[in-house]
């Protein structure tokens, strides 16, 4: 496989349970998942169903209870070690003592790449944080922090992007603008992207495929291809797909009796 081509991601029999006998929490039932090279896949599901868990397993930040993950034939650890993978964490995970610029530059340092101040500033402008380069995270709003986190993800030029609700704290208008502008940043570069989101319309607008997960323990209840031309705009076709996904989500969550 070429070093610069986006890799496919293969999850075999992947599952994760927390705790021990007696107080066991199954977060993820064994799943088989394949994400094609260069595709953007959105993952939607009710809160607490195991989306972050799935992402962490794929990044190799957590050890699966069963099964394995292969990214283009490599293990997640190998991918991470050559800095070919970036994660945008649900809570942004910006270091409070570093400025926006410093936080983004840190990713290059951790990835053992030479410093590149020009690209840092370009990305900061792209995510709409120009003028805030020297502010610390405490001075930013939740949405601004998430945008800084996305810029940090992109600065190491990864082949795999794992985004955990990257727009969760962003208002609708900004979200629409980011949905419009940001994907161009990575879709042009050949990146395999997984995007966890709570917004069905965002999932449909951004991705090539939407996976709907059931409440915990997560199973795949629907797998919907999004064959819309890019750049995308709202319209009848998109609305139909949105309705599809919404219905799958609703059906995935029948009022089940809670285990005691």
């Amino acid at each position: 496989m070429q070093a610069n081509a986006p890799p496919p991601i293969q999850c075999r029999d992947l599952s994760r349970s927390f705790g021990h006998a007696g107080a066991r929490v199954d977060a993820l039932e064994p799943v088989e998942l394949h994400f094609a090279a260069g595709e953007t896949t959105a993952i939607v599901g009710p809160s607490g169903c195991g989306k972050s868990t799935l992402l962490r397993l794929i990044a190799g930040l957590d050890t699966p209870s069963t099964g394995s993950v292969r990214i283009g034939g490599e293990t997640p650890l190998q991918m991470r070690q050559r800095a070919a993978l970036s994660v945008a964490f649900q809570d942004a995970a910006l270091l409070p003592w570093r400025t926006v610029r410093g936080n983004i530059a840190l990713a290059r340092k951790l990835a053992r790449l030479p410093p590149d101040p020009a690209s840092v500033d370009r990305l900061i402008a792209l995510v709409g944080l120009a003028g805030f380069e020297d502010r610390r995270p405490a001075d930013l709003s939740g949405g601004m922090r998430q945008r800084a986190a996305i810029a940090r993800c992109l600065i190491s030029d990864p082949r795999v992007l794992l985004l955990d609700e990257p727009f969760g704290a962003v208002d609708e208008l900004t979200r629409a603008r980011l949905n419009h502008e940001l994907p161009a940043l990575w879709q042009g570069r050949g990146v395999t992207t997984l995007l966890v989101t709570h917004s069905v319309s965002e999932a449909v607008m951004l991705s090539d495929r939407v996976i709907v997960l059931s409440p915990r323990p997560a199973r795949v209840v629907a797998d919907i291809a999004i064959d819309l031309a890019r750049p995308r705009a709202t319209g009848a076709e998109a609305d139909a797909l949105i309705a599809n996904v919404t219905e799958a989500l609703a059906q995935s969550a029948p009022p089940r009796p809670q285990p005691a």
Partner: protein
Amino acid sequence: MTIALHQLRRRGADRFYPVLSALVALLMWELLARVFAQTYLIAGPVEISRYLWDHAGLVARAAGITTFAAAIGFVLGNAVAIALAVAAVLLPSLARLISALALVVFCLPLVATGPILRVIWGPGLGPQITLAALAVYYTTFLPLMVGLRAAPPSWFDLVRSYGRGRFSALVEVRAMASLPYLFAGLQIAAPAAFLGAMFGEFTGAERGMGVLTIRAMRSLDVAGTWALASTAAAISMLAYAGLGRLSRALNNGPPPLILAPVLEGERRARWRALLHPILVTLILLAIWWLSMEAANLSPFFAKRPADVWAFLITAPEAAAHRATLGAALLETLVLALPGYLLGLALGLGLAIVLVLAPKLARGVMPVAIALRAIPIVITAPLIVVALGRGPAGTITIVALMIFFPSLVACYQGLARTPRQVLDLFDSYAASPLRRMASAQFPAMLPAFFAAARMAVPAAILAATTAEWLATGRGIGGLMALTASTSGYKMLWSAVVVLAAVAVAGYVVVAQIERAVLRIYGAEQLTR
């Protein structure tokens, strides 16, 4: 404009209250000294100032020497603390062992360690510096251990997501995240270093504040004793305030609340839970024996583990030795325990009162925080001079030693109740008492227990110091006696037994803490 004015007035008031309460305290002190001049031996601020004026050169020289020894001990002790904490974080499998060893060394009774260090080091600054280092390393080690682990998991995930390991996490995340904790520890360490240096001087130093204090006390020089203790307190408070300033300049944000971790450990198989203390004990004995052998110290004063074992267990008169030691220990504990409970209860009680009466708190808390910086033990001579040699004096010293740290910890713990929880109670118009009982009190428990654990060795230190310096009773008195008659076997045995008692007390409090916190919310269990 009005808002700015209001704020200005507010800020003025915030400065004004502490100054006012300090003035009131000074005035009351002077009054007490005058009223009770015949009954108790108290020197007031005026008399103290006169003494200091007359003996300025002498006191300044002594203070200089003691501060010098304290500063070197401070640097060495903290360097060891930082190295230990970093090692524990980089080698997690050794963390428990390192923490346990650190705790045991912390539980060594400083008073008795002094004379032993004196014969080992001979004349000079050796014992002062060693004791200052011993007095500070744990107060830095503990918060640093908390601080190095205080970062949210996603920060570590970030480092790992670029394939980097523990070392990068230490440099990029832990180091900075632990800074406020480090400074909180250093701040408490500064007065402790001074205390340690003074202790070293109690036992055969030529010069320094400790020497002058002993001399003044022995000659019943009331003004001198009070003046020296006030000077020591002032230096400690200055160091405390200076480090606080430095810390605020370097870190923005409020200082963290330090919840000292219970000896950490997940649920383990029973045999491992048993094995661990045995392993720690064996390693300690090995370190003890090896260091004595390596330094080639004379077996006359540098006793080995086998000597203590023989003295207490296998020697023909072992039963008599045990009886002497046991009786003395009992005599001490009978005073230390009430003082411990009294100090904790008073600290907790006043903290609750202050939270219910915030106006009062604004005046009292800054003074209480300042007083926490005073190593209370150095006031032991005063209290004995004032209250006499009966049980009241010793109990008061122990209670005072524990009161201030407990008050500050409980108050900060109560203030830590999450805002949303308080808002919830307010939205139901709950009474302040109800809010205290249902929300603030449970939120404070971890801070309270952290203080209660740290107070165990402190209580033993206070009790034995009072006995050593003043009353001559209990195990402190026994140690003073054996130190002056070169009864090193008994002295070493007393050190071992006292350290074991302190560790046992710490573990008992930790067990109570676990049980209580399990009821009051497992999420509050500090690891």
